[in-house]
């Protein structure tokens, strides 16, 4: 199961899209293929049909992401064709083909992995339907899709590394609970983390907890049995695993703060853990991409200038504000 993926930045959405006129016509290639449509019709939210082949419902992050799209579509009156691929890329691709045959106006695609989209993107292009890549990125040629909106996993890792540096100024040994082996989020976060981590901090062990609470716990248990009090900190790739790991740490008789924990996501569970003092820093990863994506879509369809690469802003939260912010967290 692919896990909590990132895509921070609710506030960023509010910012007006930066104008990049040169790119717009090219990215909005569909206009060329179906000139009548583009010329005759000025799209509004209520006349737009968007296809969203969601990847699955494997994590809090993902369900929040789905909810964001559905709610926004409901509010704006966008007709949303939604499907759930149950973590299977083949289902996402076939859903895209179904959307193409239905003649939707635009496709927003949250790709499960970066590879493998060439053929179906080409098909969309041939049919004159622009595609917005949401959240993770794809490796296909830039001309194959209109825009990308999402976050940068490596950056999240870097931020987490900085936090860890602050928490352990004197260095020490830490462990890492990584996400699902091979997932973009896990590799990106691990890479970024190591990039910024001080030399005096040593990662003595790293093991996957598959982004789930149930597996986070036994992995942490094993670490604790093996290294005991040597562990000064832990970088945990998402809040779900952190919650599992905290159970293990509690059971081993540690007090909050004995092991400095940096986690990613900023879910309600993560905030609660900060309130309780277990987590020292939580790197946000915002799933609420609905409004931003819809706005972008409208711009693309109407040939207005838009930003072909939107990076969502990533915040880091700390325990001091946690209690205050907790009630306002949506996921």
């Amino acid at each position, binding site marked *: 199961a692919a896990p909590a993926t990132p895509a921070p930045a609710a506030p960023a959405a509010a910012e007006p899209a930066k104008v990049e006129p040169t790119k717009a016509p090219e990215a909005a290639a569909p206009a060329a293929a179906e000139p009548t449509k583009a010329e005759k019709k000025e799209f509004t939210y209520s006349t737009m049909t968007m296809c969203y082949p969601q990847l699955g419902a494997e*994590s809090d992050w993902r*369900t929040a992401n789905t909810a964001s799209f559905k709610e926004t579509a409901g509010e704006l009156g966008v007709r949303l064709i939604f499907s759930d691929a149950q973590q299977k890329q083949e289902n996402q691709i076939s859903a895209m083909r179904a959307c193409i045959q239905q003649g939707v106006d635009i496709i927003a695609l949250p790709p499960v992995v970066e590879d493998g989209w060439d053929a179906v993107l080409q098909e969309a292009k041939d049919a004159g339907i622009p595609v917005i890549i949401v959240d993770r990125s794809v490796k296909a040629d830039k001309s194959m899709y209109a825009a990308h909106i999402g976050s940068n996993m490596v950056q999240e890792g870097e931020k987490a590394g900085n936090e860890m540096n602050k928490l352990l100024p004197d260095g020490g040994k830490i462990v890492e609970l990584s996400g699902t082996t091979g997932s973009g989020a896990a590799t990106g976060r691990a890479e970024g983390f190591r990039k910024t981590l001080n030399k005096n901090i040593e990662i003595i*062990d790293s093991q996957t907890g598959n982004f789930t609470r*149930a597996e*986070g716990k036994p992995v942490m248990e*094993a670490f604790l049995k093996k290294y005991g009090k040597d562990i000064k900190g832990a970088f945990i790739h998402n809040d779900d695993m952190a919650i599992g790991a905290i159970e293990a740490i509690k*059971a081993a008789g540690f007090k909050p703060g004995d092991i400095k924990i940096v986690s990613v996501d900023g879910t309600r569970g993560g905030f609660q853990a900060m309130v309780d003092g277990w987590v020292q820093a939580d790197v946000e990863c915002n799933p609420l991409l609905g409004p931003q994506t819809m706005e972008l879509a409208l711009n693309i369809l109407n040939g207005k200038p838009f930003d072909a690469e939107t990076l969502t802003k990533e915040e880091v939260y700390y325990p001091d504000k946690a209690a205050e912010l907790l009630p306002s967290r949506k996921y």
Partner: protein
Amino acid sequence: MKKSNLFDKFRHSRLFWPLMALTILLIFDAFYAPSFFKIGVLNGHLYGNLIDVLNDGAPLAIVAIGMTLVIATGGVDLSVGAVIAISAAMGAVLINPALGNQLITNDILTADRTNTPLGLIVLADIAAGTLCGLWNGLLVSRVRIQPMVATLILMVAGRGIAQLITNGQIMTIYYTPYFWFGNGFILGLPVSIYIVALVFVIAWLLVRKTSIGLFIESVGINSRSTHYSGISEKNVKLFAYTFCGFCGSIAGLILSSYVHSCDANNIGLAYELDAILSVVIGGTLMAGGRFSMASSILGAMIIWTFTLTMYTIGIPANTLLAAKAVLVMVVILLYSDQVRGLINRLGTKKGGSNVESN
């Protein structure tokens, strides 16, 4: 002479091979992960890797008990993972139905409150799982759908139902008494171990002190003959699947209690496969017939000892899966008559005068 007879008897018992495998695994640990055997006392209860094996392996052991009965009837239950999710979702939703769509307020988080009394939660948990088992049993015994297909349906739909119950949210539980099942201690040992013991004793009494065990084996071997002997082979199967659902619900209770939450998509993931493996490692044939629940529990322990060993010695994450495959295969090959024959022959040659006894 008596001693050797006892040994022979033990050697031919169903517990022998799984015990052997577990021993070998522990000997391996003794060399490569000595810390595995450290047992300390923490806050008045025992603490250590071995305790973790028992504690973490408890849900699997319970599911394995139910799965043993199903497999003994010649069937299989692929839906236990989904059943775990459904019963956990049931519990989570009853504790706090408000969590679904609404924002959490601080008083919900801090208040140690529940919307439903604990007893009722447990009952609902169990009822949900047992009902799922009953459904499987009805499909298999009355509608006569092949077990794998019948349970595949709930395997696919079950997690959807669990998500429906929790409204697609990962539900975090903030009600402390609920945590007791997965994290509590009695006399220094985790509560979950007692639950395994309880389920085992119930199952054992049910199966070995009544004729149900005999009927289950008989159905597994030749269900037509069993039917001709006046045994309602339908009801025997119905019982096995229902009981397996019951076991799934208990496992769901413990698992959600472990991590204080119910994640409908991930809780009990792949438990059906691990449970089947436990049963097979325990030496019960998938074709049905003779079974031993105690061996299946040992099988579950082998799987968890191995998993924790791998975590402890720090096998790189990417080789874990392949390593697990090789280990389980080796254990299971020990059951192959062909391989055993080879081992026995080697043993006889070494022992020289070893006489085959009956």
